[in-house]
Every structure is written in C-alpha cells, then in structure tokens.
C-alpha cells in the first residue's frame, strides 16, 4: 500500500509543542511526507490533491487537527471530498489528532508530546493498513421532504420547499401547533401551504425509520408509508416528542435533552445525520424564519445533486464461521441483522445498519466484524499505544466513543486543560463496540488502567451502545473478581452534553488513585 503522510503545523500551534520537522524526517524515510502550515487552506488542499495524483497514493494519513474539524467545517469537508475525488477510499484515510490530543494538552512537555504524536501517527497508519476498502453506493435523491413538527419554523421551511417543487409531508400529533402568538405572522405561510397539491399532513407516529440521505423510508402508526429524500425536524422544545423520535432519528442531544445541530456557528441546521436538518427552538419569529430558510436551502442543495454517495460502514459476516445462532439479531437495535434460517447464516441489511458495532461485540464466534474498525485493528492499536512509556506516572488506555467521548477530549485540549502524557486515546465508533477483550488486551500490554469515556444516559447515538457496554463491563468485573483481581482498574465515565471536560479531570483523579494503589 502506498501511504502518504501529511503533517500540519497547525499555524504554529502544533509545532510549538510537537517537533513536526523531526517527525517528517523520521517518516520521510519510509513514505512520502509533506508538511503544511495548516490543512485548512485551499492551497494546502491543492497540494495534497496533486501529491495523491502524482505519487499514485492509495492511502492518506493526515496528522494535525481533530477529525471533528473535517466533519464540522466546510473547509474540512472540502478536503475529504477532494481526497474522495482523487480516488482515496474513505477507509484508506486516517486522521491522527496531534493537535487536540497532543500539542494542546501537553504544552509543557514538548519532548514527550513528540513521542506521543509519533505513536498516534503509527496508530493511524495501522488503521489504513488493516482496513478493507469500504463499499460505496449512490442514491438518487427523492424530491420529497418530511417535515416533523408543524411549528412556525416547520411551516416556513415547508413553504420554501413547496416553492422549489418538493413533495412535502407533515408529521405531527396535531395539524397546527399552538403558534405562541405568531398566528398573524404565519397566516400568509399557512395560506400558501393549505390545499397545496404537494403538501400532505399526517397526524401519526413513526414506527419504523431507515434508509439514507436521499432516500429515507418512514412507516407510520396509521399504516402509511412515507419516503423522503430529507427530513426537517422543527419540534421546538417538545421534549416528549424528542424522546419519541430519538431512537429513529439518532440525533445528538443537548443538556436539556433536546436535539442539537452540528455547530451553533457554522452548521446551524445540519445534524450528525446527513439528510436530517434541525431547526432548533428559537425565541423569536425572525430567527425561526431565517433558520427555516437555512434548513430548506441546505436540504435543497443536498437533494439537487444527481447522486448522493454513501459509505457502507456496516457490519460484515465471515460465512465460514457464522453458525446462525441469532445473537446479533437479538442485539441489534436497528433490525439490521438478519438470518437465513435455511443456510443458518447471518447477514446485514445495509439499508438499516448504522455501523455501531454492537453486534460485533456480541457475536460469540467472532464471525462479525466492523468494516470501519476491525477487531484486528483495535487490538493492534492497543499494542501500538502501549509502546509509549511516559517518564513518570501511570499509563491509561483512554477509550473514547465517537459520540461524546471524542468531543469531550477535544474540548479539554481546546480549553487549555493540561493532563499527563500517559493518557493514551483510542477512538471507537461506539461504546457498544468495546469488547471486554480490548480491556484485557490493554492490561496485558501493561496499561495501569482503562478508562472508557462514553455517552451518558440517553445520549448514545446508537441508542443502546452505552448501556450494553455497562452490561458487559459488569459481567467482566464479576469475572475479574472471581479471579481475585480487583476490577478497580477499569473505570467508565458517561459524559452528559458531549462537550464537557469532566472526563479528563476524572481521568486525572483516576491516575492519582492508581499511583497510590501502586505504592500501597
């Protein structure tokens, strides 16, 4: 495999702590390496694109800013789509977060930070080496939108979409919600929507929801089946409806328990789900109307594409090992695991699988594996992370779920919270993917403790990933106790709102505890 490494100095922010030049020289002996001031500018993107083409790279490792930067900003997104155009499979791209996870939290230990950065880059390289290319499918978007919530904002957005010739289905408990005294302002919109041939109202509940951006299938309690290219959620501060929708839509939630958008600054209506847009609760009608325009505009530009590309980050089955026991069916929250009762063989419904990996942890034979993070990769990553030896203090395997754990650790870095270099981060798709085997492997490799930082309570994007982890961890603790081993070296933290730094302070306390335990 021809892997190229692109290092970012983070406009001096990373290179202030991490010796980026020496890392470049080191990796330069074995692979093409380029160093950039940052990975955000259009100039950097052009150079990266050219390098990939000229050197015929088939895998890329970016070492610099957090992957969240690529997910949540337009610049970041552009680089990912450029790499895609250059023929880099999404699974052949790995990101080593040496800014938020290394340079920012370890400013006062530059030599150690450089060593740790190298280990994180090694893990990223291992990831591309051990990942199979992921299959891509293309969906022709349907020009139909389901608007959930007949609030003023929902009606505004619907009006825009009807003007652009979309089919609009409304879904709510009642036809028009109490409009908080906005009835006058909303009158013209109501008039435009009422009796519009392309607008239909459904007073019902969702019973099943699956599909991709561009083509969602929504089954309702009243038996109607809707299909939509995109969804607009405009339910205001209706907490009850949020609870009801959450297992289907799987959107992030804020501290009040309401759905939240990707970012309050640059992605005001986008959510973690590509085809679902959210108009958050707003106090004024003008904010509601501009957010509605934003959501309608974003959805229009998404659904006006000829095809929307989807990466099938699903669970796969090794047919030589699967005996068809049905454990995966019982575990999967999304009804994505299926079984052929005659051949006694499991399979995955790619329209439903969200790739959380809960079935992989559950599979008793090891027949299931995750395309985006194979068991072989995670075990290997733990071994690589164990090669870093901090000058003093204990070493922690710090497992962070993509939902809440990862952003929390980033938050700590971004807010100047320093913590010991012995905290070794390992990102997993979901806490439910965390096989107890990984914990054992970490202890085997000499980590003094394992921390799992996951979503709290009902904040798990995969609905049951965090609680299934707890269930497994409790059994695991019981097993350890039966062997006379104290289960104290495993700690699990739930992060409530996905952007607090409490998990870091808890981890530091844990390190102190481990240190004292060592002395006793």
């Amino acid at each position, binding site marked *: 495999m021809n892997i190229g490494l692109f290092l970012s100095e983070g406009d001096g922010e990373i290179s202030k702590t991490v010796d980026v030049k020496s890392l470049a020289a080191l990796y330069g002996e074995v692979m093409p390496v380029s160093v950039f001031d940052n990975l955000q500018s259009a100039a950097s993107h052009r150079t990266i694109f050219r390098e990939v083409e000229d050197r015929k790279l088939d895998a890329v490792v970016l070492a610099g800013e957090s992957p969240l930067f690529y997910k949540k900003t337009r610049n970041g997104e552009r680089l990912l789509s450029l790499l895609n155009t250059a023929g880099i499979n999404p699974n052949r791209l790995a990101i080593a977060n040496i800014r938020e996870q290394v340079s920012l939290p370890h400013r006062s230990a530059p030599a150690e930070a450089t060593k740790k950065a190298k280990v994180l880059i090694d893990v990223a390289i291992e990831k591309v080496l051990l990942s199979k290319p992921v299959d891509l499918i293309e969906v022709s978007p349907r020009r139909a939108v389901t608007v959930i919530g007949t609030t003023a904002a929902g009606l505004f957005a619907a009006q825009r979409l009807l003007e652009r010739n979309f089919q609009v289905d409304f879904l709510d408990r009642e036809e028009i919600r109490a409009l908080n005294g906005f009835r006058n302002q909303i009158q013209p919109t109501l008039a435009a929507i009422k009796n519009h041939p392309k607008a239909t109202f459904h007073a019902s509940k969702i019973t099943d929801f699956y599909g991709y951006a561009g083509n969602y299938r929504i089954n309702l309690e009243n038996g109607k089946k809707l299909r939509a290219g995109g969804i607009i959620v405009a339910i205001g501060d209706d907490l009850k409806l949020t609870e009801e929708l959450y297992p289907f839509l799987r959107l992030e939630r804020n501290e009040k328990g309401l759905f939240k958008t990707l970012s309050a600054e640059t992605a005001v209506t986008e959510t973690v789900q590509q085809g679902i847009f959210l108009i958050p609760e707003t106090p004024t009608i003008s904010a509601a109307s501009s957010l509605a325009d934003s959501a309608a505009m974003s959805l229009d530009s998404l659904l006006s594409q000829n095809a929307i590309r989807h990466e099938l980050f699903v669970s796969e089955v090794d047919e030589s*090992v699967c005996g068809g*026991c049905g454990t995966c069916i019982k575990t999967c929250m999304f009804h994505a695991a299926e079984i052929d009762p005659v051949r006694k063989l499991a399979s995955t419904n790619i329209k439903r699988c969200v790739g959380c990996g809960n079935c992989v942890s559950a599979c008793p034979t090891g*027949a299931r594996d995750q395309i985006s993070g194979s068991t072989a990769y995670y075990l290997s990553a733990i071994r690589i992370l164990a090669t870093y030896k901090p000058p003093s203090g204990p070493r922690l395997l710090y497992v962070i779920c993509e939902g809440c754990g990862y952003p929390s650790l980033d938050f700590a870095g971004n807010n100047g919270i320093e913590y010991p270099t012995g905290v070794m981060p390992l990102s997993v798709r979901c806490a439910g993917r965390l096989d107890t085997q990984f914990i054992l492997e970490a202890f085997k490799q000499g980590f003094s403790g394992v921390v799992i930082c996951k979503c709290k309570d009902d904040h798990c994007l995969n609905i049951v990933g965090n609680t299934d982890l707890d269930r497994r961890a409790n059994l695991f603790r019981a097993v350890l106790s039966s*062997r*006379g081993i104290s289960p104290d070296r495993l700690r699990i933290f739930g992060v409530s709102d996905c952007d607090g730094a409490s998990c870091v302070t808890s981890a530091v306390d844990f390190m102190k505890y481990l240190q004292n335990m060592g002395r006793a």
Partner: protein
Amino acid sequence: MAKLKVATGLLQGCFGCHMALLDLHEDLLPMLVALDIVRSPINDVKEVPEVDLGILDGAVCNTENEALAKEFRKKSKKILALGTCATLGGINGLRNLYDLDTVLKRSYVKNESTVEGMIPKSPVIPRLLPHVKALHQVIEVDYALPGCPPTPAMIATALMDIISGREMKIASKNLCHECTRTHEQMYIPRREFVTDSVTSIMELDEINEEKCFLEQGVLCMGPATREGCEARCVKGNTPCRGCMGPGPDALEDVVGVGYRYSLPVSIYPHREEK
C-alpha cells in the same frame, strides 16, 4: 507403504478420549493397515519408543504428566493433542480457581471422609504443578482435536488426515449450525430477550425437546462453542456446556469463564494468589 508408528499416552484425564478411540470398534481395523500402535496405556508399555505420531490425552497437572509430555515430544515426529483436556486444559483446569495449598488441604486434610489427614510428601509421588496447563503450554503441539471426548468419527477423520499428510480440518462454525432444535424467538429482532434472566434447566417444569434452549430461558453454550460434536448433548435434551471450546475466530477466551473447559488457556488462566 510403511505403517505410521503411533504411541498414545495418558496425562491427567479420565481415559475418555482413549475410550472414544476404541469406540471406533471395527472401523478401527481398516486404519490399522496404515498405522501401528506400538505404545499405549492399554498395551501397558512403559517406555516411549521413537514414533511418527504421539497422541496425548489429558491435561498437564503434575510433574509426571510434564515428564511424560516432554518424553513424547522427544520421541515423536508429530504430536496430536487429543481431547479438550489436552487442547484447552479441560475440567481439570477448574483447579486453577484455587491455589495449590487450598486444593491439597481440601483433598487430604479438610475432607469429610478424612480423620487427621495429611498431605502426602513421599518423594516417589508426582507433585502437583501450581496450575493446570494445556499440552501446548508445555510442549510444541502439531495437531489439536478438542471434544470431551471427541466423537469416534472426529478421531477417525483426524487420523486419516494425518496418515495421508493432509491438513487436519476441524469444524469452524458454532454449535447452532448443527443443532437440530427449532429457532424462532432467536431470529426475531426484539431486544427484550437479550436482558431476560436465565434459569437453570432444573427449574423448568418441562423441557421442550424441540425448541432452542435459549428460547426456553436456559443458558446453552452452543452459540459460543465450536460445532463438530454432533450436538450430542442437545440431542439428549441437555444444553451445551461448551466442551469443544470456542471457534477459530472467537476472540481469545475472555478469562475462560464462558467455557468451563478452557480456563488454563484464557488470558488470565488462574486465580490471583494472595
């Protein structure tokens, strides 16, 4: 064609694997055209001659087992670990949940049938090792055949593979694959079942002979156990206990607790000693 010279030996086991070999009955006869059993506990030869294949049954529990295993390794071109004790440690391995002192006291001193007991100290009696080990943890093993005991058919197939120089193949799927009970609830995507409590088979008023044990709320190790045993237990209306051990791709046995037969080969193979 020269006959394959074979020696068999018994380590710490119940002799069941040797019995399974004998259970081949007349099917053993055609095999004797190709192999010559020159030493076995049955023909009572004490020395281990030079052989092509050494077959060992049982786990390594004491110094005598260890010495015999090493002697076999020295004298045999290839070694077959026969049965679950030899491949995974087996039921013997459960001793690893206690330290040696506790085990010896329980056997010889604090025993319901013993008055003023004492731990034997004679130098001619083999000493127990601190922990029970599977054969491959003591000597290099070329072939491994799990099963408690392996079925005669499995033994015959394995021996034929070895005789003809083929790679020895054993089943790779889990027991559910060859289980003949009906699965309905297990195939319904409803999570409630996952967290339901588990009952012991003794607690059931009636055991349905056709239905999956898990669907009756009884813990059956089938999903986590390698097939190949012909599902003898489930056919006998008893849930699988996992004697075949995990399949080839299953992650390393999580502390061995799921499989009561494989504690010695788990990552943490014994109890922490105080």
